[in-house]
Protein backbone atom coordinates (compact mmCIF):
# COMPACT_ATOMS: atom_id res chain seq x y z
CA UNK A 1 0.00 0.00 0.00
CA UNK A 2 1.27 3.50 -0.73
CA UNK A 3 0.34 6.32 1.59
CA UNK A 4 0.13 9.69 -0.08
CA UNK A 5 0.33 12.97 1.87
CA UNK A 6 -3.46 13.25 2.03
CA UNK A 7 -3.81 9.76 3.48
CA UNK A 8 -1.10 10.52 6.01
CA UNK A 9 -2.85 13.69 7.07
CA UNK A 10 -6.13 11.79 7.39
CA UNK A 11 -4.48 9.24 9.65
CA UNK A 12 -3.01 12.02 11.78
CA UNK A 13 -6.38 13.74 12.15
CA UNK A 14 -8.20 10.50 12.92
CA UNK A 15 -5.87 9.02 15.50
CA UNK A 16 -3.33 11.48 16.93
CA UNK A 17 -5.41 12.41 19.99
CA UNK A 18 -6.14 8.79 20.94
CA UNK A 19 -2.54 7.80 20.32
CA UNK A 20 -1.42 10.66 22.55
CA UNK A 21 -3.73 9.46 25.35
CA UNK A 22 -2.41 5.93 24.99
CA UNK A 23 1.17 7.25 25.05
CA UNK A 24 0.33 9.27 28.16
CA UNK A 25 -0.89 6.17 29.93
CA UNK A 26 2.39 4.40 29.12
CA UNK A 27 4.84 7.23 29.73
CA UNK A 28 2.87 9.15 32.37
CA UNK A 29 4.59 12.27 31.13
CA UNK A 30 3.11 14.80 28.70
CA UNK A 31 6.30 15.68 26.88
CA UNK A 32 7.26 12.05 26.40
CA UNK A 33 3.74 11.18 25.27
CA UNK A 34 3.81 13.94 22.64
CA UNK A 35 7.23 12.79 21.49
CA UNK A 36 6.08 9.16 21.20
CA UNK A 37 3.05 10.22 19.17
CA UNK A 38 5.21 12.24 16.81
CA UNK A 39 7.74 9.43 16.49
CA UNK A 40 4.96 6.97 15.65
CA UNK A 41 3.85 9.10 12.72
CA UNK A 42 7.44 9.44 11.60
CA UNK A 43 7.57 5.64 11.51
CA UNK A 44 4.35 5.64 9.53
CA UNK A 45 5.81 8.05 6.99
CA UNK A 46 9.01 6.08 6.56
CA UNK A 47 7.68 2.52 6.88
CA UNK A 48 4.06 2.98 5.87
CA UNK A 49 4.65 0.72 2.90
CA UNK A 50 4.52 -2.21 5.32
CA UNK A 51 0.80 -1.58 5.87
CA UNK A 52 -1.04 -3.57 3.28
CA UNK A 53 -4.52 -2.54 4.25
CA UNK A 54 -5.46 1.01 5.26
CA UNK A 55 -8.05 -0.41 7.66
CA UNK A 56 -5.18 -1.93 9.60
CA UNK A 57 -3.43 1.41 10.00
CA UNK A 58 -4.97 2.11 13.40
CA UNK A 59 -3.73 -1.17 14.88
CA UNK A 60 -0.35 -0.57 13.25
CA UNK A 61 -0.10 2.86 14.87
CA UNK A 62 -0.93 1.59 18.36
CA UNK A 63 1.44 -1.37 17.98
CA UNK A 64 4.23 0.87 16.73
CA UNK A 65 3.76 3.43 19.50
CA UNK A 66 3.91 0.75 22.17
CA UNK A 67 7.01 -0.81 20.60
CA UNK A 68 8.65 2.61 20.35
CA UNK A 69 7.92 3.25 24.03
CA UNK A 70 9.60 0.02 25.11
CA UNK A 71 12.53 0.58 22.75
CA UNK A 72 13.14 4.05 24.15
CA UNK A 73 12.92 2.75 27.70
CA UNK A 74 15.40 -0.02 26.98
CA UNK A 75 17.81 2.38 25.30
CA UNK A 76 17.63 4.92 28.10
CA UNK A 77 18.09 2.25 30.74
CA UNK A 78 14.91 3.40 32.48
CA UNK A 79 12.96 0.35 33.24
CA UNK A 80 10.64 -1.36 33.97
CA UNK A 81 8.43 -3.56 35.88
CA UNK A 82 8.49 -6.35 33.33
CA UNK A 83 6.12 -8.70 35.05
CA UNK A 84 3.97 -7.59 37.88
CA UNK A 85 1.67 -10.56 37.63
CA UNK A 86 3.52 -12.21 40.44
CA UNK A 87 2.49 -9.51 42.87
CA UNK A 88 -0.29 -10.36 45.17
CA UNK A 89 -3.67 -9.04 44.20
CA UNK A 90 -4.10 -5.63 45.67
CA UNK A 91 -6.62 -5.42 48.37
CA UNK A 92 -8.55 -2.44 47.17
CA UNK A 93 -12.10 -1.60 47.80
CA UNK A 94 -13.99 -1.53 44.52
CA UNK A 95 -16.90 0.30 46.03
CA UNK A 96 -16.87 3.33 43.83
CA UNK A 97 -20.14 4.85 42.80
CA UNK A 98 -20.70 5.32 39.10
CA UNK A 99 -22.10 8.77 39.81
CA UNK A 100 -18.86 9.71 41.51
CA UNK A 101 -16.93 8.65 38.40
CA UNK A 102 -19.23 10.68 36.20
CA UNK A 103 -18.72 13.71 38.39
CA UNK A 104 -14.94 13.29 38.67
CA UNK A 105 -12.82 15.15 36.19
CA UNK A 106 -10.53 13.56 33.65
CA UNK A 107 -7.44 14.23 35.73
CA UNK A 108 -8.78 12.12 38.61
CA UNK A 109 -9.60 9.22 36.31
CA UNK A 110 -6.23 9.42 34.59
CA UNK A 111 -4.46 9.65 37.93
CA UNK A 112 -6.23 6.49 39.06
CA UNK A 113 -5.46 4.78 35.75
CA UNK A 114 -1.79 5.71 36.08
CA UNK A 115 -1.64 3.88 39.40
CA UNK A 116 -3.09 0.68 37.95
CA UNK A 117 -0.30 -1.83 37.50
CA UNK A 118 1.39 -1.65 34.12
CA UNK A 119 0.34 -5.18 33.20
CA UNK A 120 -3.30 -4.15 33.27
CA UNK A 121 -2.98 -0.51 32.26
CA UNK A 122 -2.22 -0.93 28.56
CA UNK A 123 -5.19 -3.22 27.78
CA UNK A 124 -7.49 -1.09 29.93
CA UNK A 125 -6.54 2.16 28.22
CA UNK A 126 -6.95 0.62 24.77
CA UNK A 127 -10.33 -0.74 25.86
CA UNK A 128 -11.57 2.63 27.06
CA UNK A 129 -9.95 4.92 24.54
CA UNK A 130 -10.94 3.53 21.25
CA UNK A 131 -13.62 0.90 21.63
CA UNK A 132 -11.17 -1.71 20.44
CA UNK A 133 -12.38 -5.29 20.68
CA UNK A 134 -10.43 -7.69 22.86
CA UNK A 135 -9.24 -9.36 19.67
CA UNK A 136 -7.78 -6.08 18.40
CA UNK A 137 -6.22 -5.38 21.79
CA UNK A 138 -4.67 -8.85 21.75
CA UNK A 139 -3.20 -8.12 18.34
CA UNK A 140 -1.79 -4.76 19.40
CA UNK A 141 -0.30 -6.05 22.63
CA UNK A 142 0.71 -9.35 21.09
CA UNK A 143 -1.00 -11.37 23.78
CA UNK A 144 -3.36 -14.35 23.67
CA UNK A 145 -7.04 -13.34 23.73
CA UNK A 146 -7.69 -15.12 27.02
CA UNK A 147 -4.87 -13.17 28.67
CA UNK A 148 -6.33 -9.89 27.45
CA UNK A 149 -9.78 -10.78 28.78
CA UNK A 150 -8.32 -11.74 32.12
CA UNK A 151 -6.27 -8.54 32.34
CA UNK A 152 -9.32 -6.45 31.47
CA UNK A 153 -11.37 -8.12 34.16
CA UNK A 154 -8.70 -7.81 36.85
CA UNK A 155 -7.61 -4.38 35.63
CA UNK A 156 -11.12 -3.00 35.97
CA UNK A 157 -11.29 -4.26 39.52
CA UNK A 158 -8.02 -2.54 40.27
CA UNK A 159 -9.13 0.65 38.52
CA UNK A 160 -12.26 0.79 40.66
CA UNK A 161 -10.10 0.51 43.75
CA UNK A 162 -7.68 3.18 42.57
CA UNK A 163 -10.56 5.47 41.67
CA UNK A 164 -12.04 4.98 45.05
CA UNK A 165 -8.70 6.03 46.61
CA UNK A 166 -8.33 8.99 44.27
CA UNK A 167 -11.83 10.23 44.92
CA UNK A 168 -11.29 10.00 48.67
CA UNK A 169 -7.99 11.86 48.42
CA UNK A 170 -9.48 14.51 46.18
CA UNK A 171 -11.97 15.36 48.88
CA UNK A 172 -9.10 16.37 51.15
CA UNK A 173 -8.80 20.17 50.88
CA UNK A 174 -5.03 20.45 50.97
CA UNK A 175 -4.45 17.60 48.56
CA UNK A 176 -2.81 18.43 45.27
CA UNK A 177 -2.71 15.77 42.59
CA UNK A 178 -0.87 16.61 39.47
CA UNK A 179 -1.79 14.68 36.37
CA UNK A 180 -0.02 13.30 34.54
CA UNK A 181 2.87 12.48 36.81
CA UNK A 182 6.18 13.66 35.50
CA UNK A 183 8.80 10.94 35.44
CA UNK A 184 10.84 10.86 38.58
CA UNK A 185 8.13 12.37 40.72
Amino acid at each position, binding site marked *: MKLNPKELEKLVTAHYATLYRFALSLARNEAEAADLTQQTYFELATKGGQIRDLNKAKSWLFTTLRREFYTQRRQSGRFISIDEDGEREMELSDEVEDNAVRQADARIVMEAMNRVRETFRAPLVLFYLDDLSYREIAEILDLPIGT*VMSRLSRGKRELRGRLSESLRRDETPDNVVRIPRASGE
Partner: protein
Amino acid sequence: MDIEEAKFILSAVPPGRIDESSPATPSDPEVAKALRMVENDPALKEWYERSRRFDAAVAERLQEIEPPADLKASILAGLRVTPTPLWRRGPVARWSAVAAVLAVGLLVGTLVDPGTSTPDGGTGGTLGEFQGDMLEEVRGLDGMDFQSNDPAAVAAWLRSRELDPGSALAAEANGHALVGCKIVQWKGYRVSLVCFRLAGEEGMPGLHVMTMDAAALETPSGEGPQFASDGTWSAATWRDDDRVYFLAAKGEHADPRGLLSPG
Protein backbone atom coordinates in the same frame (compact mmCIF):
# COMPACT_ATOMS: atom_id res chain seq x y z
CA MET B 1 -21.54 -20.86 31.19
CA ASP B 2 -21.97 -19.75 34.80
CA ILE B 3 -22.41 -16.25 36.20
CA GLU B 4 -18.70 -15.65 36.75
CA GLU B 5 -17.88 -16.72 33.20
CA ALA B 6 -20.57 -14.40 31.88
CA LYS B 7 -19.10 -11.50 33.87
CA PHE B 8 -15.63 -12.35 32.62
CA ILE B 9 -16.77 -12.25 29.00
CA LEU B 10 -18.92 -9.16 29.32
CA SER B 11 -16.11 -7.28 31.07
CA ALA B 12 -14.09 -7.50 27.86
CA VAL B 13 -16.73 -5.96 25.59
CA PRO B 14 -16.13 -2.22 25.15
CA PRO B 15 -19.06 0.14 25.73
CA GLY B 16 -19.54 0.96 22.07
CA ARG B 17 -19.42 -2.61 20.80
CA ILE B 18 -22.87 -3.82 21.76
CA ASP B 19 -25.88 -2.59 19.88
CA GLU B 20 -28.32 -1.87 22.70
CA SER B 21 -31.26 -2.06 20.33
CA SER B 22 -30.31 -5.59 19.39
CA PRO B 23 -28.08 -6.88 22.15
CA ALA B 24 -28.51 -10.56 21.40
CA THR B 25 -26.86 -10.44 18.01
CA PRO B 26 -23.21 -9.52 18.49
CA SER B 27 -20.77 -11.30 16.23
CA ASP B 28 -19.18 -13.24 19.11
CA PRO B 29 -21.46 -16.16 20.11
CA GLU B 30 -20.01 -16.25 23.64
CA VAL B 31 -20.97 -12.62 24.14
CA ALA B 32 -24.44 -13.36 22.79
CA LYS B 33 -24.77 -16.23 25.23
CA ALA B 34 -23.65 -14.06 28.15
CA LEU B 35 -26.12 -11.36 27.15
CA ARG B 36 -28.97 -13.86 27.09
CA MET B 37 -28.03 -14.81 30.66
CA VAL B 38 -28.21 -11.13 31.60
CA GLU B 39 -31.81 -11.01 30.46
CA ASN B 40 -32.75 -13.97 32.65
CA ASP B 41 -30.83 -13.22 35.82
CA PRO B 42 -31.76 -10.06 37.77
CA ALA B 43 -28.58 -10.05 39.88
CA LEU B 44 -26.40 -10.43 36.80
CA LYS B 45 -28.43 -7.75 35.06
CA GLU B 46 -27.83 -5.34 37.93
CA TRP B 47 -24.10 -6.09 37.85
CA TYR B 48 -24.02 -5.66 34.07
CA GLU B 49 -25.82 -2.33 34.08
CA ARG B 50 -23.58 -1.02 36.81
CA SER B 51 -20.52 -2.25 34.95
CA ARG B 52 -21.65 -0.58 31.71
CA ARG B 53 -22.30 2.71 33.47
CA PHE B 54 -18.84 2.55 35.01
CA ASP B 55 -17.22 1.76 31.64
CA ALA B 56 -19.09 4.55 29.89
CA ALA B 57 -18.13 7.06 32.59
CA VAL B 58 -14.44 6.10 32.50
CA ALA B 59 -14.35 6.15 28.71
CA GLU B 60 -15.98 9.57 28.64
CA ARG B 61 -13.54 11.01 31.19
CA LEU B 62 -10.50 9.65 29.36
CA GLN B 63 -11.68 11.08 26.06
CA GLU B 64 -11.64 14.51 27.69
CA ILE B 65 -7.86 14.50 28.00
CA GLU B 66 -6.66 16.94 25.41
CA PRO B 67 -3.35 16.57 23.61
CA PRO B 68 -1.07 19.62 23.55
CA ALA B 69 -2.63 22.28 21.34
CA ASP B 70 0.23 22.30 18.86
CA LEU B 71 0.75 18.53 18.63
CA LYS B 72 -1.19 17.95 15.42
CA ALA B 73 0.49 20.86 13.63
CA SER B 74 3.84 19.64 14.88
CA ILE B 75 3.24 16.11 13.57
CA LEU B 76 2.12 17.37 10.19
CA ALA B 77 5.11 19.71 9.94
CA GLY B 78 7.38 16.80 10.87
CA LEU B 79 5.86 14.65 8.14
CA ARG B 80 6.52 17.33 5.55
CA VAL B 81 10.25 17.30 6.30
CA THR B 82 10.53 13.52 6.75
CA PRO B 83 12.76 12.01 4.06
CA THR B 84 10.45 10.58 1.43
CA PRO B 85 10.53 6.80 1.35
CA LEU B 86 11.39 5.08 -1.88
CA TRP B 87 7.81 4.19 -2.65
CA ARG B 88 6.86 7.86 -2.78
CA ARG B 89 9.83 9.24 -4.72
CA GLY B 90 9.80 10.40 -8.29
CA PRO B 91 9.72 8.22 -11.39
CA VAL B 92 13.50 7.81 -11.78
CA ALA B 93 13.97 6.45 -8.28
CA ARG B 94 10.84 4.38 -8.61
CA TRP B 95 11.94 2.79 -11.87
CA SER B 96 15.39 2.18 -10.40
CA ALA B 97 13.70 0.34 -7.58
CA VAL B 98 11.58 -1.65 -10.02
CA ALA B 99 14.71 -2.57 -11.97
CA ALA B 100 16.42 -3.70 -8.77
CA VAL B 101 13.43 -5.81 -7.82
CA LEU B 102 13.33 -7.35 -11.29
CA ALA B 103 17.04 -8.13 -11.10
CA VAL B 104 16.57 -9.92 -7.78
CA GLY B 105 13.53 -11.66 -9.23
CA LEU B 106 15.51 -12.92 -12.21
CA LEU B 107 18.22 -14.11 -9.89
CA VAL B 108 15.64 -15.91 -7.78
CA GLY B 109 14.27 -17.45 -10.95
CA THR B 110 17.63 -18.88 -11.90
CA LEU B 111 18.10 -20.36 -8.46
CA VAL B 112 14.69 -21.90 -8.03
CA ASP B 113 14.81 -25.63 -7.72
CA PRO B 114 13.93 -26.78 -11.27
CA GLY B 115 11.66 -29.50 -9.94
CA THR B 116 9.38 -27.09 -8.13
CA SER B 117 6.55 -24.84 -9.13
CA THR B 118 7.12 -21.09 -9.31
CA PRO B 119 4.89 -18.49 -7.68
CA ASP B 120 1.51 -18.50 -9.34
CA GLY B 121 1.26 -14.71 -9.63
CA GLY B 122 -2.00 -14.70 -7.70
CA THR B 123 -3.13 -12.23 -5.14
CA GLY B 124 -0.61 -13.34 -2.55
CA GLY B 125 0.36 -16.04 -0.18
CA THR B 126 2.88 -17.90 -2.30
CA LEU B 127 6.17 -19.28 -1.10
CA GLY B 128 8.00 -16.86 -3.41
CA GLU B 129 6.13 -13.86 -2.04
CA PHE B 130 6.83 -14.97 1.47
CA GLN B 131 10.50 -15.26 0.62
CA GLY B 132 10.62 -11.80 -0.98
CA ASP B 133 8.81 -10.12 1.91
CA MET B 134 10.89 -11.84 4.56
CA LEU B 135 14.11 -10.92 2.79
CA GLU B 136 12.90 -7.33 2.91
CA GLU B 137 12.21 -7.70 6.65
CA VAL B 138 15.74 -8.98 7.22
CA ARG B 139 17.24 -6.09 5.27
CA GLY B 140 15.27 -3.55 7.28
CA LEU B 141 15.62 -5.28 10.66
CA ASP B 142 16.10 -2.67 13.37
CA GLY B 143 16.01 -4.63 16.60
CA MET B 144 14.50 -7.55 18.40
CA ASP B 145 11.50 -7.92 20.64
CA PHE B 146 13.31 -10.25 23.04
CA GLN B 147 17.06 -10.63 23.48
CA SER B 148 18.56 -13.72 25.01
CA ASN B 149 21.27 -16.26 24.21
CA ASP B 150 19.32 -18.96 26.05
CA PRO B 151 17.40 -21.21 23.60
CA ALA B 152 14.97 -22.29 26.33
CA ALA B 153 14.17 -18.66 27.18
CA VAL B 154 13.61 -17.75 23.53
CA ALA B 155 11.42 -20.82 22.97
CA ALA B 156 9.41 -20.01 26.10
CA TRP B 157 8.99 -16.37 25.06
CA LEU B 158 7.66 -17.39 21.65
CA ARG B 159 5.42 -20.14 23.02
CA SER B 160 3.92 -17.78 25.55
CA ARG B 161 2.80 -15.79 22.51
CA GLU B 162 1.39 -18.89 20.86
CA LEU B 163 4.23 -19.16 18.35
CA ASP B 164 6.24 -22.27 17.70
CA PRO B 165 9.89 -21.75 16.74
CA GLY B 166 9.89 -25.20 15.10
CA SER B 167 13.44 -26.27 14.37
CA ALA B 168 14.74 -22.69 14.12
CA LEU B 169 16.70 -23.02 17.36
CA ALA B 170 18.64 -25.98 15.99
CA ALA B 171 21.15 -23.51 14.55
CA GLU B 172 22.32 -22.83 18.11
CA ALA B 173 23.51 -26.42 18.44
CA ASN B 174 25.47 -25.91 15.25
CA GLY B 175 27.71 -23.24 16.76
CA HIS B 176 25.78 -20.10 15.82
CA ALA B 177 25.27 -17.70 18.71
CA LEU B 178 21.66 -17.03 19.57
CA VAL B 179 20.89 -13.32 19.92
CA GLY B 180 17.13 -13.11 20.34
CA CYS B 181 13.83 -13.13 18.53
CA LYS B 182 11.10 -10.98 17.13
CA ILE B 183 7.55 -11.35 15.83
CA VAL B 184 6.73 -10.03 12.38
CA GLN B 185 3.48 -10.00 10.44
CA TRP B 186 2.82 -11.40 7.00
CA LYS B 187 -0.61 -11.21 5.38
CA GLY B 188 -2.30 -11.35 8.75
CA TYR B 189 -0.18 -14.26 10.00
CA ARG B 190 2.40 -13.95 12.72
CA VAL B 191 5.89 -15.13 11.92
CA SER B 192 8.57 -15.87 14.51
CA LEU B 193 12.04 -14.60 13.68
CA VAL B 194 15.04 -16.02 15.54
CA CYS B 195 18.39 -14.26 15.09
CA PHE B 196 21.92 -15.60 15.45
CA ARG B 197 25.46 -14.47 14.90
CA LEU B 198 27.11 -16.82 12.46
CA ALA B 199 29.65 -19.15 14.07
CA GLY B 200 32.94 -17.34 14.64
CA GLU B 201 31.55 -13.91 13.73
CA GLU B 202 30.99 -10.79 15.80
CA GLY B 203 28.74 -7.80 15.35
CA MET B 204 25.28 -7.77 13.84
CA PRO B 205 23.34 -11.02 13.51
CA GLY B 206 24.13 -12.73 10.23
CA LEU B 207 21.65 -15.60 10.40
CA HIS B 208 17.88 -15.26 10.64
CA VAL B 209 15.34 -18.08 10.73
CA MET B 210 11.64 -17.41 10.36
CA THR B 211 8.86 -19.89 11.05
CA MET B 212 5.22 -19.55 10.04
CA ASP B 213 2.10 -21.68 9.93
CA ALA B 214 1.95 -23.26 6.43
CA ALA B 215 -1.77 -22.48 6.32
CA ALA B 216 -0.74 -18.97 5.31
CA LEU B 217 0.34 -20.22 1.90
CA GLU B 218 -2.03 -20.58 -1.00
CA THR B 219 0.23 -22.79 -3.05
CA PRO B 220 0.16 -26.62 -2.95
CA SER B 221 1.94 -28.41 -0.14
CA GLY B 222 4.15 -30.26 -2.63
CA GLU B 223 5.96 -27.08 -3.62
CA GLY B 224 9.72 -27.47 -3.20
CA PRO B 225 12.27 -25.18 -1.61
CA GLN B 226 13.14 -21.81 -3.09
CA PHE B 227 16.46 -20.01 -2.97
CA ALA B 228 17.54 -16.43 -3.51
CA SER B 229 20.61 -14.25 -3.20
CA ASP B 230 21.04 -10.51 -3.45
CA GLY B 231 24.81 -10.38 -3.07
CA THR B 232 24.62 -9.79 0.69
CA TRP B 233 22.12 -12.38 1.85
CA SER B 234 21.54 -15.95 0.73
CA ALA B 235 18.03 -17.14 1.45
CA ALA B 236 16.11 -20.41 1.42
CA THR B 237 12.39 -20.94 1.94
CA TRP B 238 10.78 -24.32 2.35
CA ARG B 239 7.88 -26.23 3.86
CA ASP B 240 8.20 -28.83 6.54
CA ASP B 241 4.88 -30.46 7.38
CA ASP B 242 2.65 -27.70 8.70
CA ARG B 243 5.36 -25.08 8.94
CA VAL B 244 7.08 -22.80 6.48
CA TYR B 245 10.67 -21.79 7.13
CA PHE B 246 12.64 -18.89 5.76
CA LEU B 247 16.34 -18.70 6.41
CA ALA B 248 18.64 -15.83 5.45
CA ALA B 249 22.40 -15.95 6.00
CA LYS B 250 25.04 -13.36 5.20
CA GLY B 251 27.42 -14.38 2.45
CA GLU B 252 27.22 -16.90 -0.35
CA HIS B 253 25.62 -20.23 0.53
CA ALA B 254 24.40 -22.60 -2.18
CA ASP B 255 21.89 -24.12 0.25
CA PRO B 256 21.85 -22.12 3.48
CA ARG B 257 19.53 -24.66 5.09
CA GLY B 258 22.73 -26.55 5.97
CA LEU B 259 23.41 -23.90 8.63
CA LEU B 260 20.58 -25.32 10.68
CA SER B 261 22.12 -28.73 11.13
CA PRO B 262 25.65 -30.12 11.46
CA GLY B 263 27.39 -31.15 8.31
